[in-house]
């Protein structure tokens, strides 16, 4: 015990031969250090709590699947992992993933831009809202996945119809949230800014857009979610490459392990993009004082 290094806080605190007076000079530093340690411990505990559920599910899954409780057609996590390694080793996964991500990126780039522009125009100008909103509301009610046959007839079975389908989905949630974000901006702030001599563009830049931003982010998260969903459907109808292509091939070959790999990939893609938007929110919405939960 006596060989414990002085930097070890726990040791210093319990050792009787280290009277507290000898530490007087170091006390503030130690207090700070122990606070940091407590914080690290709390974070670690939170991390463990959050991981525990996931680990429990995986373990249960492995046990149940290998015991055959869940039928013969459910692969175990280990089998899924092996299939993932097989797909990665052959380069198949990377190639198809790149094709899928490219499609979603194209669709989102067009769909989000259109949704943003339409939402801004409708939100900023009442006359534009009167023109733009009724047709968009009507179109919004058509489940966009029902457009698959229409787009195939119009654009063929190539890339165009797929990207077109992916861009339609995200357009509406973003449009709607941009419009309502703008409508939700406190008009008293706009009035105050105008009274201080801000021009129209400045009011938009300094007041309306920042005020609408929280809602715009909600729309962005929904839109990206819809884009991934649309990707699945778009790729399962005759695509040369893509996660969806792999999925339908695996279905035809009855490779349940590969199907599970792909399902997990879809989940991870969704989580990754959602995380990205949440990072943006964290960066741009620090000023908010909403209820953060208990």
């Amino acid at each position, binding site marked *: 015990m006596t060989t414990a290094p002085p930097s070890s806080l726990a040791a210093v605190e319990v050792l009787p031969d280290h009277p507290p007076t000898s530490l007087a000079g170091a006390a503030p530093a130690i207090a700070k250090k122990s606070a940091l340690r407590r914080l690290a411990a709390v974070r670690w505990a939170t991390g463990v709590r959050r991981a525990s559920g996931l680990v429990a599910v995986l373990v249960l899954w492995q046990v149940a699947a290998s015991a055959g409780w869940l039928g013969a057609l459910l692969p175990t996590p280990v089998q899924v992992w092996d299939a993932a390694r097989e797909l990665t080793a052959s380069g198949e996964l990377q190639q198809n993933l790149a094709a899928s991500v490219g499609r979603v990126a194209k669709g989102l780039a067009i769909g989000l831009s259109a949704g943003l522009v339409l939402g801004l125009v409708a939100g900023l100008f009442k006359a534009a809202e009167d023109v733009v909103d009724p047709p968009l509301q009507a179109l919004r009610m058509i489940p966009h996945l029902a457009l698959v046959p229409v787009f195939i007839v119009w654009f063929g079975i190539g890339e165009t119809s797929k990207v077109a389908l992916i861009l339609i989905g995200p357009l509406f949630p973003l449009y709607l949230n941009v419009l309502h974000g703008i409508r939700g901006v406190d008009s*008293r*702030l706009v*009035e*105050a*800014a*105008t*009274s*201080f*001599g*801000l021009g129209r563009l*400045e009011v938009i830049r*300094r*007041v309306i857009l*920042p*005020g609408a*931003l929280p809602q715009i982010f909600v729309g962005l998260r929904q839109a990206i979610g819809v884009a991934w969903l649309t990707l699945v459907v778009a790729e399962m109808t005759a695509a040369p490459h893509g996660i969806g292509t792999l999925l339908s091939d695996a279905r035809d070959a009855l490779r349940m392990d590969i199907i599970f790999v792909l399902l997990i990939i879809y989940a991870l893609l969704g989580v990754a993009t959602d995380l990205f938007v949440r990072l943006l929110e964290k960066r741009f919405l*620090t*000023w*908010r*004082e909403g209820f953060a939960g208990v």
Partner: protein
Amino acid sequence: MSEYHTPTVRIRGLSREFDGVRILHDLDLDVAPGEFVALIGASGSGKTTLLRIIGGVDTGATGELAAPSERAIVFQSHRLLPWSRVWANVALGLRGRDVRKRAEVALAEVGLHEHAEAYPKTLSGGQAQRVALARALIRNPQLLLLDEPFGALDALTRLKAQSLVADLWAQHRPAVLLVTHDVDEALLLADRVLLLRDGQIAEEFHVDLPRPRVVGTPALTELRRRLLAGLGVDLPIQETA
């Protein structure tokens, strides 16, 4: 004042209706340069409406109105942009390289220099209202319009804010129009108290008393009694005897 001044605010025959309900009717008002005028009236008497018309945020009035374009409003609620830092709120709409510096000077005047980088959510109600005051003063207004700016503050904070306004007015000497329902506040700060009733300026009280004023002195108490009587609150004369 022996010298003739062009008034900072000149209003003749001003009327304002909301959906057929007459709020202001054929109202006349002059405010001299550097004069501190308090506008008092029962709630719903149209005092805030008059301030908004003079401030240019209500454009639905008829009649004659001349007010300087260098004017600034401090609203009832602070109306700071929650997404802009305090200094950026103060500098809102200003251009130039030194706006940050100027905002800091204005913040120092209201005693909030060290909060320049903070977001409004971190401020107390009194601090936020002081930032709103700095945001108005940085524009060097010829006319400062205060719309019950201390109404939501607690009594102690309100007293401090009132003396801050008195100091800032003494230093910068803009013409001030203060809308308030607080008779004591009007009498402590103003050169002239106007009583708004039935859409017009019904009574006018000159407060020719030295500053800083103290509530409870006989002259102020007498004015207070007359003002309250004008508002329909009759106090016995011997109340403070």
